[in-house]
């Protein structure tokens, strides 16, 4: 079981290009389900 973040995890948490990709993924996820919600 994970108890502390590894050095690699901390690196990716602050690596700007990777974080931009995660930002886009997150927004797409929320937008997809929000559109489904609005149709109800």
């Amino acid at each position, binding site marked *: *079981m994970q108890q502390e973040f590894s050095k690699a995890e901390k690196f*990716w948490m602050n690596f*700007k290009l990777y*974080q931009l990709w995660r930002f886009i993924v997150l927004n797409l996820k*929320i937008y997809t*389900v929000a559109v489904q919600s609005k149709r*109800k």
Partner: protein
Amino acid sequence: MAKILIIGAGFAGHTAALYLGSKIGRKHEVTVVSNRDVFSYLPSWVWVGVGHMKPEKTVFKLKPVYDRKNVRFVHAAVKEIHPDAGDQYVLADEVGTGRETRLDYDYLVIAPGPLLNFAGTPGLGPENGFTHSICSYPHAIKTRDAYLALCERMKKGEKVKIVIGTGHPMATCQGAAFEYIVNVHKDLVKKGLRDKADILWLSNEPELGDFGVNGVQIKRNGHMLRSEEFIKSVFNDHGIRYQIQTGVTKVEEGKIHWQNYEGEEGVTEFDFAMLIPQFKGQPFKYIGKDGSDIASKIVNPAGFVLVDGKYGLPYPELAQTPEAWPSRYQNPTYPNIYAAGIAFAPPGPISKPFTNKNNLAIAPAPPRTGMVSGTIGRVVAMNVIDAVNGREPSHHESMTEMVAACVASMGDSLWDGSAVTIVMRPVVPDRKKFHNEYGRDLFISHLEMGLSGAWMKFMLHHTFMWKFKARPGWTLIPE
């Protein structure tokens, strides 16, 4: 012309008002009655509480927005609801003058937000107690002042004890407290004072990362990641101690009294504490045509409005019955009354409840704030529009279908800030639809920490302020 009255102008009430005003406000009378004449963007009070955001940036006046959206605004505190057919009205006292005003309605939306029940825990709260809160605008400002004064003491070399979490065995909104504790940590690191503070997370959750929603689970790189281990990593990484399965029973100056799952009683000392109180329904009087108290037809004993849910199921059965959760938010006795946001009565807890040997129930109540509140506000508005147009309410979305996102920031910098981003779908596990032990969509559900979360938090603040001001394109922004 139909008269639609909305009580409250928070996430749920304000969302409902904007949809109703935009869609039918020209033909029908849409009125909002609220004891506050501003909209408050609550999620940013976390930043107010550590002195990182000016309080006035989290609020704006409601009336100019409502004037544009064909909504009438009444600045008054509701005290009585008279729901019987033929003479349906609400009595309220105007803020400032104290003059009693009568507001007739054909359709009523109850969305006043929670009553912060500080009285439920002796000694809790900033007014008659010894702890702080970020649950209201004045409380957030008072918390900021107390926190900054504490920092001054630390700058002089004093070591302090900080306790953040829940202040009642049945409190909810652990997410807000979590965001506050990590912001306090980050702020102290930036100020070079972290070594002067012992920070403790004190919570009624059954396990770390439960957040009142039975935790969050995601699939990452083929492995399951649970919020319990994730939040444990965050706390270990930040040197934050934690004590869970604990219900706060009493607070004295510098001392928090608690009981845990084992029934043990204990005392935790503090110099500064921010503890979320129990939430209850607003104490409105519900009066029948004959003057009798008919509250039991509309609200449960905690004051939350009964809607189209299945109430009274034991937890194991409720956990397997997603259809028990309401989806139209319509009162069964008075179908022209709807409830939105915190105001509706959930059919039971989402997290596993627990009662210790001293008969003290220690269990987080279901959170229904933020995105959930806004979504319910929209669903209710659409159903009222159906009813006004002579149709059966056709819109529905229960918490077993809803998605919710929570971004717990750690600092507000867009360059080196960070945040824990949590997305869960659905909020209440649906084990019939999602065939895994968690009852969640493991693809959409999201649990991550990083700089992107800080961008997300910044974006959310600005896009939601845009949306709630009903500026162009506001309907395109999700609730």
